[in-house]
């Protein structure tokens, strides 16, 4: 038997050992011990926590690839031991899987964390609310805003759009100038177009029913608006991270505006190795409103979460760690992402808002959108991010008409959802 066969089989052997469950046991006396799993970006934060509780809590920090979080947790679920006490998840959807009784990893934080913590930033933690209880705390909000180049806007005489029709009109003015209104060939099309519009893709009513409707007007109108812009060459069908897009468009200063999450400024537009937009150009405006929506909603691209283990021997210590990591002002002031808690946010806003890099402070637009993330989308147990990549992005990159790409994407979700225990309605 060859080696490549041996590995999956050995893995299956691990699955088989479900019989022996360890149980959570009693906390007992002694110093509480916590194992914290983070990605490399969050490692300094976890280390800071480790330092701050030195002597009281024995903290071990391990850096993992958060893409493997679900894999590792389900292996521990099968072996019945080994779970980390606190985890950071880069995919906010993970809470739906980990909090589900079929998995049972995520602890109900409503039992251990003070109510005021969840409310520390208006509605930010509603994402973590499952059947009336909180199962995670948001590390950051990734609400979409309209990023624009103030210098280019002035040169070309563009105005900042407040409705999506205006956005299309302004974008169309870029035709033939070499400038673009962003790129849609990645998760941005999902997070900054479909989600704000309210297109049902993960509109879970409860833990067993989800609405996915390719024919909903909130979906079809997005493609109708975007397709002419693609045809006119003012919306790029590559990813915002595509090497070619970076070299030909972004680094050449040819992005007049783009929708993007709140972390785009610090993480995508600014760094030399990324879009490298020079100082004094970048500004942010609130999202334009879709005709018929009651609010100018955002979507979210990312927005990590912290969770505690329901198997932890020290549930209170784990809850304290989660609270600290998600809310500590000192810790989050320096992060590239928009903190999901009030006091931390204020320190962060002070730093970013006064940064001379920006043509004007992007903070007001972010603040406005922070409470306007369209609540129609919910965490779901099927891998919606995976399908965005596998279908939506792949089709758009390949030049498929946007309406067709969107439909294929939603149809793949309709096929995927029942496997995770959902009944799909339209």
């Amino acid at each position: 038997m060859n080696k490549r066969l041996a590995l999956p089989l050995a893995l299956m052997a691990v699955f088989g050992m479900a019989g022996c469950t360890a149980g959570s046991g009693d906390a007992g006396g002694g110093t509480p011990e916590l194992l914290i799993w983070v990605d490399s970006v969050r490692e300094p934060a976890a280390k800071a926590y480790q330092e701050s509780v030195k002597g009281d809590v024995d903290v071990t920090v391990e850096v993992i690839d958060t893409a493997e979080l679900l894999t590792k947790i389900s292996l521990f679920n099968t072996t019945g031991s080994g779970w980390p006490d606190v985890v950071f998840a880069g995919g906010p959807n993970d809470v739906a899987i980990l909090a589900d009784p079929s998995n049972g990893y995520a602890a109900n934080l409503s039992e251990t964390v003070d109510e005021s913590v969840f409310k520390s930033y208006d509605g930010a933690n509603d994402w973590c609310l499952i059947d009336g209880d909180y199962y995670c705390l948001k590390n950051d909000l990734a609400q979409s805003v309209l990023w624009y180049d103030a210098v280019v806007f002035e040169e070309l005489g563009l105005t900042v759009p407040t409705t999506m029709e205006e956005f299309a009109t302004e974008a169309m003015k870029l035709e033939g100038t070499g400038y673009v209104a962003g790129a849609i060939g990645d998760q941005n099309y999902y997070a900054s177009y479909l989600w704000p519009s309210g297109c049902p893709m993960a509109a879970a009513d409860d833990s067993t029913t989800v609405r996915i409707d390719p024919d909903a007007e909130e979906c079809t109108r997005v493609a109708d608006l975007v397709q002419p812009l693609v045809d006119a060459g003012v919306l790029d069908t590559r990813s915002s991270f595509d090497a070619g897009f970076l070299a030909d468009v972004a680094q050449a200063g040819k992005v007049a505006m783009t929708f993007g999450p709140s972390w785009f400024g610090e993480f995508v537009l600014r760094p030399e190795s990324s879009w490298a937009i020079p100082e004094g150009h970048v500004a942010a405006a609130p999202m334009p409103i879709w005709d018929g929506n009651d609010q100018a909603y955002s979507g979210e691209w990312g927005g990590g979460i912290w969770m505690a283990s329901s198997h932890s021997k020290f549930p209170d210590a784990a809850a304290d760690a989660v609270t600290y990591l998600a809310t500590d002002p000192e810790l989050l002031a320096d992060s590239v992402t928009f903190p999901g808690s009030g006091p931390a946010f204020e320190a962060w806003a002070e730093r970013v808002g006064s940064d001379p890099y920006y043509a004007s402070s992007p903070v007001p637009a972010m603040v406005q959108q922070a409470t306007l993330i369209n609540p129609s989308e919910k965490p779901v147990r099927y891998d919606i991010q995976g399908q965005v990549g596998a279908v939506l992005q792949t089709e758009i990159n390949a030049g498929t008409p946007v309406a067709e790409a969107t439909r294929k994407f939603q149809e793949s979700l309709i096929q995927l959802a029942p496997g995770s225990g959902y009944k799909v309605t339209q």
Partner: protein
Amino acid sequence: MARSRIKRMSALSGSLMFAPYLILLVAFGVVPVVMAFFTALKPSMVNPAGGFLNYLVVIQDFRFLPALTNVATFLVIYVPLMVLVVAAMSLLLDAIRSRWTVPLRAAYIVPASISGAVAILVWYFMLEPTYSPYGDLLRAVGITEGSQIWNTGNLVWIFVLMAFFTGAGNWIIVQYGSLQSISDDILEAARIDGANAFQIGLQIKLPLIRRYLIYMSILTFAAGLQIFVEPYLISSTVYPGLADNWSLNQLSYSFAFQSGNLGASAALSLMLLVICIIAALIAIFRTDFFEEARPTTKRSKKAARAAMPAGSAI
């Protein structure tokens, strides 16, 4: 009496020699398969009753048929390509008996050091017009954007390329080893009979290493059927989702860790195992792979002994 004692002794020593392998086979081959068999009956959200229905769940999954098609296409291209090119290259290498043979052999092994994660990076940079050292060449044939190469239609060719360059070099050396063991007497006799180099290669050498080519095709088939690393890595790094659930093994992985459906995952793994075993059995029993060497093929038996250690190291 003495004869039966010798027989007993040789049976005993045979068993002793086989024991270490048997232990490993049971521990890491048989036990996992049995466990997988029982895991494959477990209930899941989509099939709360569990049982053999899990196999149906797998086959009816909307990702199953595309993944099966992908892997089948991959195998149809990859396995014959490997056999043909490896046979041709090793015959050529064997034909050149000069001072260049040693450095040439080394050169064949070099690409094999680029495997898995590294291969993804290397091929990404080679095929991405912005970064590629052959960027001008790519643009000259009209490829200006990465997505013109990195799209779903081309994936099978890209994975064949990766797998081929990773695996071919090693196999060329192995098959060269088996060619080395062909007796000079035979080749000499052929030459005296007036065979040219081409005829010797095709009609003398090739038939003598045939069973090692079969052995190789079984292993490349099994490895190819389980393709996982290349599509998994490309989907989780440079082109998110591009080859998501592209292969059957990826689908098995998704069942286990995205849908928490260990039953379906194990069922699919077992199906792959069965296909592998059937393919191996066909290759073994429809050919003379395991037949005792007859007097006429005495020399190929010798070749077998020479080539086996090299082959089993792969």
